[in-house]
């Protein structure tokens, strides 16, 4: 495992998109070169998207080391499947699709493991271990934990859209491409996700 320093990147604004027109053209060229065996071209793609991919995976996998492993695995799978990539489609949504699927699989496995663990050992420890490297702002951590609990109550198909749109700032058309769904479906799910989040959040306050 690498011993890199950890940083908290600046939050992404909601109007940012994962790629613009220039990147799109550049991606297609780099993919083509990588297909022809130019590994360095794939390296450019990795460097272009790794930061963003790590952020997205980190929304589902709270362990930074696991998130990094999953990001690496995502790039490996993408490299191995370059021949299957349809050049008429955009590269980035395909990359994030693979990354999100890996992260969700990992998240589900962890969830099952925690359930089994809590069944046998009633453990009151926090699910999210505190990172000793960060300061200890208890209030914000408590608020964050509450938000996280409410988000976790939302069914996965809605939660996924909520996270990608409202936390990661992907546009609804980008989410549609990542999840391979129609944009209308994504917009409906987004509205449903926001309504459910608001409902659960208010209910929590009235308890």
């Amino acid at each position, binding site marked *: 495992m*690498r011993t*890199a*320093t*950890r*940083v*908290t*990147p*600046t*939050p992404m604004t*909601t109007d940012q998109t994962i790629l613009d027109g220039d990147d799109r053209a550049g991606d297609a060229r780099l993919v083509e070169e990588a297909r022809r065996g130019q*590994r360095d071209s*794939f*390296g450019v793609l*990795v*460097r272009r998207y*790794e*930061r963003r991919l*790590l*952020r997205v995976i*980190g*929304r589902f996998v*709270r362990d*930074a080391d696991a*998130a*990094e492993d999953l*990001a*690496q695995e995502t*790039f*490996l799978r993408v*490299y*191995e499947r370059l021949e299957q990539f349809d050049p008429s489609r955009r590269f980035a949504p395909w990359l994030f699709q693979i990354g999100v699927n890996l992260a969700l699989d990992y998240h589900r496995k962890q969830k099952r493991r925690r359930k089994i663990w809590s069944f046998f050992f009633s453990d009151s420890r926090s699910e999210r271990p505190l*990172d000793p490297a*960060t300061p200890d702002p208890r209030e*914000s951590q408590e*608020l*964050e934990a509450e*938000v*996280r609990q409410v*988000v976790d109550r939302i069914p996965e198909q809605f939660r996924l859209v*909520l996270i990608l*749109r*409202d*936390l990661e700032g992907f546009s*609804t058309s980008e989410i549609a491409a990542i999840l391979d769904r129609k944009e209308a479906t994504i*917009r409906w799910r*987004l*509205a*449903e996700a*926001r*309504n459910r*989040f*608001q409902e659960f*959040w*208010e209910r929590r306050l009235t308890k």
Partner: protein
Amino acid sequence: MNCGEAQQELALWVGQDLTDPVRIETLRRHVAICPVCGQRAKALKASLVALGSLEVPQTYDTIDSLWPEVEARIMARQSQPPMRSSLVIWAALGLLSLVILGGTAWMWRTTPPSAAPAVTPNEPVAPPLYPPSPGHQSSGISPAIP
């Protein structure tokens, strides 16, 4: 616009995800005069603010890019001896042969032996081994040997 229509679109409106400017303006006017929808819009906005309080996940500083490790793993996979892949192919072929052989043997065992007709229509009938007893009508088929 009535409250039912407004409520359907409020969640998208508060996140600036409505695209039709006419629709946006209509909704804005409705929310301004309808206390119920106005309250709902406020609640939705407040919940989105709370959601935004989730910290950005901590990630490695990508000054240390993932690429060197990804590249090393790609090279490791590519440099795996070709022997291994050919072994897999031979193993698969062997397995396939076993399945085919097993299937053939099973079919051969379960298929009943075809009962050949004792006498074909054009076959000359053999003379009886024993002379027919008096009054016996010959059926043209040899009697079973005791």
